[in-house]
């Protein structure tokens, strides 16, 4: 069965709520499905990352199929790092046949970031080429031009750098336009804590051509906020947040509150939805989404 709540809501213009659901490193999926089932109905779809940070784990397609088999909609990531064009297309066909109707293309981080430093990365095609490939499949042909027995009608998205510090808004806006031309219909941003960081890019693109879905990251501690502010180049953590956490009587509750407020801000600002990323704290998804 093809699940399409995500697409339907985007088309209607209602606010979508996505949650990141990382598959396990191993074959025991009970924890993952347990977390997902608990918020079924509160989340429109689960975004299943493809081995983020180049750490080997169950593939996004595998994880997504486990969730879909339990009636939960997923958006599966497809990544240029580990598969050549043959494998990428093959997995895309498999995904659609298994009921997955939305995909998100990512470049993927170099193996040197992850836990298999000796691996040879693939990068047979890059992100733009991958988006073009998905469009080709949608039109009923593969990259070699051969006709398909049934075409996958994917809703396709991509990662963007919009809102990340140190990125030129002009270059990023051009980059987004290229991705839209290649067929991307939704963009997922890096973790954002405010609208200000992404505003200069948004000014430069046609908002009606694409759905922008910011990532809302659940901070876990003051230490994490400080660490990210200092060491994670593509995430801007405002100083005010760290100060707020410092004085909060219950820091974990404050972290949840910050995430809730961030979601409300993005909703109020007219974004198409949010992606909640809890990085190991999936048991907190329900609490963050409570009442937002």
């Amino acid at each position, binding site marked *: 069965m093809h699940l399409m709540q995500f697409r339907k809501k985007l088309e209607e213009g209602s606010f979508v709520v996505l949650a990141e659901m990382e598959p396990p490193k191993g074959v025991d999926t009970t924890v993952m499905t347990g977390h997902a089932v608990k918020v079924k109905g509160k989340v429109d779809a689960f975004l299943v990352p493809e081995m983020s940070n180049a750490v080997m784990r169950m593939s996004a397609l595998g994880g997504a199929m486990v969730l879909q088999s339990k009636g939960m909609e997923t958006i599966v990531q497809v990544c240029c790092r580990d598969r050549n064009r043959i494998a990428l297309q093959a997995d895309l066909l498999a995904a659609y046949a298994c009921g997955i109707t939305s995909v998100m293309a990512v470049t993927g981080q*170099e*193996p*040197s970031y992850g836990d298999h*430093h*000796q*691996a*040879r*990365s693939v990068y047979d095609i890059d992100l733009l080429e991958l988006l073009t490939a998905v469009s080709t499949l949608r039109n009923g042909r593969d990259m070699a031009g051969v006709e398909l027995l049934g075409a996958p009608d994917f809703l396709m998205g991509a990662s963007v750098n919009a809102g990340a510090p140190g990125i030129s808004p002009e270059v990023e806006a051009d980059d987004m336009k290229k991705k839209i031309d290649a067929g991307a219909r939704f963009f997922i941003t890096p973790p954002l804590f405010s609208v200000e960081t992404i505003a200069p890019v948004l000014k430069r693109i046609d908002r009606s051509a694409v759905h922008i879905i910011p990532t809302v990251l659940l901070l876990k501690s003051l230490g994490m906020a400080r660490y990210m502010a200092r060491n994670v180049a593509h995430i801007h953590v405002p100083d005010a947040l760290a100060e707020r956490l410092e004085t909060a009587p219950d820091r974990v509750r404050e972290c949840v509150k910050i995430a809730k407020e961030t979601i409300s801000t993005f909703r109020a600002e007219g974004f198409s939805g949010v992606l909640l990323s809890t990085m190991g704290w999936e048991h907190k998804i329900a609490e963050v989404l409570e009442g937002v």
Partner: protein
Amino acid sequence: MIVAEKKPMEEIIEEVKRFENILVLGCNECVTVCEAGGKKEVGVLASALRMFFLKQGRKMRIDERTLERQCDPEYLEEIRDVADGYDAVVSLACGVGVQFTAEHYPNLPVYPGVDTCFMGVTEARGMWTERCQGCGRCILASTGGICPVARCAKRLFNGPCGGSSDGKCEIGKDTVCAWQLIIDRLRALGRMEEYERIAPIKDWSTDRAGGPRKIVREDLAP
């Protein structure tokens, strides 16, 4: 050596047609040996370009020069005094030379005049074949001196695949199976016991897959 092939004339014309003063810059090393970008090829290309543009009624200045190497700052400096007089350079060096020339002359457009293909040997007059991919951790000691990274179509490390037949690779009758060569050689050297050992899983972090590479020799640094 680094083996390169001349680019088609039309492609080079397309690159340079909007300029007036062009320097065709050759290199005296690998590309001279493989007859793609040495002094001789610089002369041939420069005359062909002159002729082409003359027929079009265009007055262009097309000069010739060949440096000892384009991958060494010392030699690149030799055109410092004349560089300003050109609108563009067509470098017939390998991709390394093209880039290094551009790095040294940031305001001068530099275009490639050859397609850089591989690291290989002159197997016969007019025939060059690949031997090494610069994987950064040479395993030739255990493969009888024949490289499976560069010469096996599937980069296998533990013997031939099922496609090897009559000593030829499954990609075509013109390609020898690298593993056939390795086995023949180990046998001739009386070292077949090495073939029986399972090779350790290859560490690709020293290959290009681990990102652009760099070697720093403290003992040589000024």
